[in-house]
């Protein structure tokens, strides 16, 4: 533990918002302590120790945000991506990271051998990698005037997809529904909104099915049987993404013909 003097056994409970998290950072400085845990509401109260409610206050959040801003783009990006992680313990990792960064200034971004830094960067990388996979693998369907898709990410990556798809499709309306977290990103008339949603099931019409069939036919035509190596395919496109890729659903449906190297 890097701040032995500060370690306390209280755990912070906050509302799960980013501003709420910044208030936890504030609290940690105000009390000169490092909590044993930081718990967003969904994580349940399993701590053996006392817990403290941390209220979300705009003024405190703004002070921490201003400090974070001064640390530079790299550190900010790490905190934003890391915060989108859906992993227990992510808040504490980010708090330790931020304390180390505030102590060392912008140079902290390069102190890669420090455990607090390495851990947070690895956390952010897991989230960024997943968002990149969805930039590659999500498949839109045309539904009426709009493009729509359902994805099943581990982390709450929708905000990381926003910039890319708005830039790629500047004139289109589209919706990306994160079924894991019940959250949708809707872009309509050039503005983006996030919506809580339980259910969204695009059902392709005949024309859309025709587009998918064309794509699947193209995809199949590309395989070179002498080079067949599905292990290699799986390392690049891990199986957990397949449910969101129409051509992989098709590959799975056609029961493998004998002779495949798996």
């Amino acid at each position, binding site marked *: 533990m890097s701040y032995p003097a500060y370690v306390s056994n209280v755990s912070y409970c906050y509302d799960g918002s980013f501003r709420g998290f910044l208030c936890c950072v504030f609290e940690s400085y105000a009390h000169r302590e490092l909590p044993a845990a930081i718990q967003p509401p969904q994580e349940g109260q399993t701590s053996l120790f006392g817990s403290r409610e941390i209220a979300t206050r705009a003024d405190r959040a703004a002070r921490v945000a201003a400090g974070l801003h001064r640390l530079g783009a790299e550190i900010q990006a790490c905190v934003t991506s890391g915060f989108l992680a859906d992993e227990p313990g992510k808040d504490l990792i980010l708090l330790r990271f931020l304390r180390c960064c505030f102590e*060392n200034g912008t140079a902290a971004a390069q102190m*890669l051998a420090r455990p607090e830094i390495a851990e947070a960067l690895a956390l952010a990388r897991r989230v960024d990698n997943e968002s990149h996979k969805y930039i590659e693998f999500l498949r839109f369907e045309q539904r009426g005037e709009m493009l729509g898709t359902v994805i099943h990410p581990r982390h709450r990556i929708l905000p990381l997809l926003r910039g890319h798809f708005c830039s790629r*499709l500047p*004139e289109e309306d589209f919706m990306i529904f994160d079924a894991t977290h019940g959250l949708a990103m809707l872009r309509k008339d050039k503005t983006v909104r996030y919506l809580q949603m339980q259910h969204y099931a695009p059902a392709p019409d005949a024309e859309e099915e025709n587009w998918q069939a064309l794509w699947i036919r193209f995809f199949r035509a*590309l395989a070179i049987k002498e*080079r067949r190596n599905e292990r290699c*395919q799986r390392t690049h496109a891990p199986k957990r993404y397949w449910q969101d890729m129409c051509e992989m659903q098709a590959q799975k449906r056609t029961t493998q013909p*004998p002779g*495949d190297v798996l």
Partner: protein
Amino acid sequence: MDLAEKLEILADSAKYDVACTSSGVERPGRAGQLGSCRAPGICHAFTPDGRCVSLLKVLLTNCCSYDCSYCVNRRTQQRPRASFDPRELAELTIGFYRRNYIEGLFLSSAVAGSPDATMERMIETLRILRQEYRFRGYIHAKAIPGADPLLVERLGLLADRLSVNIELPSEASLNRLAPDKGKAAILRPMGQIARQSAASRRDLAVYRHAPAFAPAGQSTQMIIGATPETDRHILRLSESLYKKYALKRVFYSAYLPVVADERLPALSVQPPLLREHRLYQADWLLRYYHFSAEELLSPEQPNFDPYLDPKCSWALANPEYFPVEVNTAPRPVLLRVPGIGPKSALRIVQARRSQRLGMPELKRMGVVLKRAQYFITCSGRAPALRAARQEVAAALIDPKAFGVGVRQLSLDDFCAVPLPDSAPRVQALAAAGVEARRAAEQTRREAIECLTRRM
């Protein structure tokens, strides 16, 4: 013929062209248009052979007037023929692009009639995409050898990347196997593209709105294993192409016998996939690690070791270069350590500014030490000082050469087979009836023994 059938035929005809990347140009979207480009490129799918699908890669037509002997589309080959109408192909590209299936179009074509007539139709397709659909996504177009330079210029103003395939690694091979194409017909457009692309970059630096000519540069491809050239010959050729024509990429394609011809390897010959892999690794060393072809291969040792990656081979042949001290060695020196790539080297250089690095720190930073540990010291201490030579050999050898997969014979009957990119020796043993896993294990043992003796 319906569109789906055409698409299948023309994708099938194009698939032996291995280049499929959308890299080299960063172009954010713009209101009123469709699409954007990201500099590192984006893959959208992976085929069952593990290759990336980034672009809609098709031929405009596969009806060819030429007769290159290694090609499935040659005039004298019996196979289904089809052609896209430029407008139909543009519409297909847009439909796929909007659905996030692809990053753009890779358009190539057989020579239908004359090179000029073929190029005109390709240009028309790109014009529809760029001007009518206002498409800002990626376009890679293949210039047809022998076409008018003015047409190459028009193509380059519409495409992001141009390529001219050098096809075979030497003029003699070219004359023998592709009699309709001369070396000059291939190199002329390459030179033109290099010149115009450089000129356009200069103009762009001065006037922001100057027309961009192939902003993602040019690439080429050659077929490996159809002809007798050595790895050294091939790598030196690539090196000179990078220098002379400022190529962005050279692609290597393991020759896959698709036609029976006495000038070519027999149809039963396996494509040399491991060799192709080694060439890509070495190519990488040329472009990102400041190696030269001469350092990697010599007249006495003109081919790569199937069991070691080229950097490892080089390190073993140059022991005086090691060990490298991670706390002080400059970045180019770190880059020469087996197992340390550009990312790790950068991380090491950054991290050591604030503290000394030992093994736990390197591990924490995500530096992979499996091979690197035998070539480095941390503050003077060698992490794997007492390792037995045999253990070192086992750690250095490339597991890819011994890959074994499973073949499904029927619903519940499986058997082991060597992966297509395992070492030729493993495949030969397996073909002679040795069980695949035993064949791989035996080859591995022999390779380790041989390497231990050499160290």
